[in-house]
């Protein structure tokens, strides 16, 4: 079946089987391989993308269910060559090792701060509960999220007010 959606600001259309999961639509039909697959049971969050600005596990949803939606993958997060503050923070704080969880972590964290621009450490951990990392022990990931919340506060506040959420 024909499935259309906007991916990273570009209109995409592909003929896929009705049972195609969003993650495989993105990886195979659109060719964006930054979204990773780490499990069969919606457990790991490596496949997290933003769907109309909210983070979702793209292995839990059919492409056909999100026709017409606006999807952001890790490839679409930077503004041209300028990295997104969350990407910068993960680089600076060593919030990654093998990097396989990183696209999902970065997007989940982005969605978290859009909802809550000044989270506590506990809120960060609660918000990222659905994303597994086997390498880092999570401390540097938490550090990265808290770092950008603090250092790019204006950016996140603007985000929050745009999406109508108050901190």
């Amino acid at each position: 079946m024909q499935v259309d959606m906007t991916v990273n600001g570009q209109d995409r259309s592909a003929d896929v089987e009705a049972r195609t999961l969003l993650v495989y639509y993105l990886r195979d039909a659109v060719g964006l391989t930054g979204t990773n697959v780490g499990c069969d049971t919606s457990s790991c969050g490596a496949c997290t993308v933003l769907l109309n600005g909210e983070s979702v596990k793209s292995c839990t949803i059919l492409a056909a269910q999100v026709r017409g939606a606006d999807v952001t993958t890790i490839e679409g997060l930077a503004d041209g060559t300028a990295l997104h503050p969350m990407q910068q923070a993960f680089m600076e704080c060593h919030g990654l090792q093998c990097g396989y969880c990183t696209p999902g972590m970065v997007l989940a964290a982005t969605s978290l701060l859009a909802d809550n621009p000044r989270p506590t450490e506990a809120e960060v951990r609660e918000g990222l509960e659905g994303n597994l990392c086997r390498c880092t022990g999570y401390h540097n990931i938490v550090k990265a999220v808290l770092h950008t919340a603090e250092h790019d506060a204006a950016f996140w506040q603007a985000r929050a007010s745009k999406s109508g959420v108050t901190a």
Partner: protein
Amino acid sequence: MSVGGTPRRIDSEGKVTGVTEYPADRIPPDALVAKVVFTNQAHARLTSLDVRAAEVTPGVVAVFTAPDVPVNVYGLTLPDQPVFVGTSHTGRTDVPCDVSRWEADHLALVVAETAHAADQAAAAIVATWEPLPVLGDIDEAMAPGAPLLHPENGLGHNVYTTYNIRKGDMAAGWAAAAAVVEATYEVPYQEHAYLQPEAGMAYIDDHGRVTVEIAGQWTHEDREQIAHALDLPEDEIRVIYPAIGGAFGGREDTSLQIVLALAAWRLHQRGEHRPVGCVWSREESIVGHHKRHRGRIQARWGADAEGRITAVESEAWLDAGGYNYTSNKVLGNLHLGQGGPYEVPNAQVTSHAVYTNAVPGGAFRGFGGPQSAYVAECQMNKLAEALGLDPVEIRRRNVLRDGSIGITQTPMPDGVTIAQVVEACAAAASTPPPASPSEPFTPFATLGPAAGDLRRGRGFACAFKNVGFSFGFPERCEAEIVLHGAVGDDAPHGADLFHAGADVGQGAHTVFTQMAAEALGLPIERVHGHFSDTAITGDSGSASASRLTWMAGNAILGAAEEADKAWRNGDRPAVGKFRYVPPPTEALDPETGVCTPNFSYGYVAQAVELTVDTGTGHIRVDRVVSTHDVGRAINPDLVVAQIEGGVVQAHGYVLSEDLQVRDARIQTPRLSTYLIPGIGDGPTVIEPLILELADPIGPWGARGMAEMPMMTYAPAVVAALHDATGVWFDAFPLTPSRVLARLNESGRP
């Protein structure tokens, strides 16, 4: 300064933007899809195999089975495993290839146009099996009359490797003992659960080489194994590692390497030139690769009234599973660790590897060390309790020092620093954490524990672990540096570094680049690395044994010196190649174990504080001080990252990861049933404490460190749990139900 600095990882931008390519990302849309068909038989003889229906399934290109493999056997340190189980094969091995000894033995590789066609064809394969008795664990495998899993080795039993240590006079040791502690310990499996499941592709490159792109830990060893099975010269095989999504020892042995190479090679012979790709599901990954060994250790230790060890008697059995993988090497490490990092005057230590039909045991961060460190440190803590000594004080009286003779009766390599590590850890643990304490993020049950159910305790443990290959295994590492500049230039303006070492996520390529920059006196941006491709890099040895920084650093220093000579000689570009070979090591003497086992060690101590809810069995680790002598931190941020990641991985091993195996079959092959720590599950506070006491032969004094956080966590947690409850736990993981059951059975607290 490049060494000792904390530049950003050279791979970080690619990883935060999604540009980095893992093996599955490299598979082009026109690639053929391969599916590995497991035998699904823990122990059975294949009596017939019919793939005709599979071959004619629409969309199927080929079905490969045993007769397609020129030498149908492989194995990293002992070739004992058929590439495919088959009723017939090319005959060039003694290993009976018609027997499935593991549920994930390979039966066939289906290659098709689509995954759907491959699945259908796999289901159309008809195999008939003669069931054989399943040896579900070491007890069944060692029972009298148990069938032999590998009769070809001529041993007549399933215990296929045994090591000994016989030192001193045991009778005198027991006679001098004021306290003797004795227990039987059971250690569990651990699944690596690297986040990137196995994936790869194979094709014939422009030079006609059978090329495999995959995630592994040792490109050249993968190449050697492929060449062996395909019976081709090594230079006709090429192995490339794109980005690797974690490894932890789980990619030390091959997974898809040989079958993918076989498919591309055979298809090419038939005029089919498209690449062949394969991506495993998480379930295939967990069922289909080895685990940290489960096993049993019986230990009896004696100490005199001052707490000095007088005798260690210890015997271990590791469940090797159906095939050796690296079990014979893991066993050696475990063996050496059975006496702990202590002066042991009298020792009788025996270690066995046992074939069973369960999942093979193999490499996993620590490589046998965590199992024996758990036992040795529990024994030490029990001796301290029996003698009324402080756990740190008893270690002070026993630890190895410079000039000490190790348990294998040869001197320790210079630079023994465990005493300093123990003191530093104890001092740090006795003061409050430097940072303001975080609120615990692992709250107990929502309703809160019953009054009086929360108990707190502290525990301490220390260990040593070899850096580099042990026991005479050939050890070396190559590096090549090319300096660029014009003929009249005083100094080069840039350099290329060629190195095969695998960056499995630990940051090896960043560290190599830092070390090359330092050795050449160039800024790090001027050094361009070319990594992990057997076509352009020399053999580096594996990303294992905490060896890569240490070995690569020494190789890079040598290559830089050679390149500098060539530069001063006027060569442009100036090329320096170097093969570093460390001091030799020796195999254990079969009777006494006498040998020089290793050339370098890392030293670690951990202090743990925890709270246990005695009403539910839940444990929360409040604080761990993880103390490491790393010799020289080439990149301190990455050292800290290894400690934090290692501690949390150890936390899963000790507290939550519970691989269930029944009748030799894995029951928990999903991340929903095999529970690795999430972001809210680890210790509340991890305090990495780094000492830099140089290794005399380490590059810039560095020691390896990546496995060390894994070594001591189990015994430190168990000691803290004992401190809290008065109960010793001689088995783990310490899941709430186990803790509760043990507390109830012991009638305490």
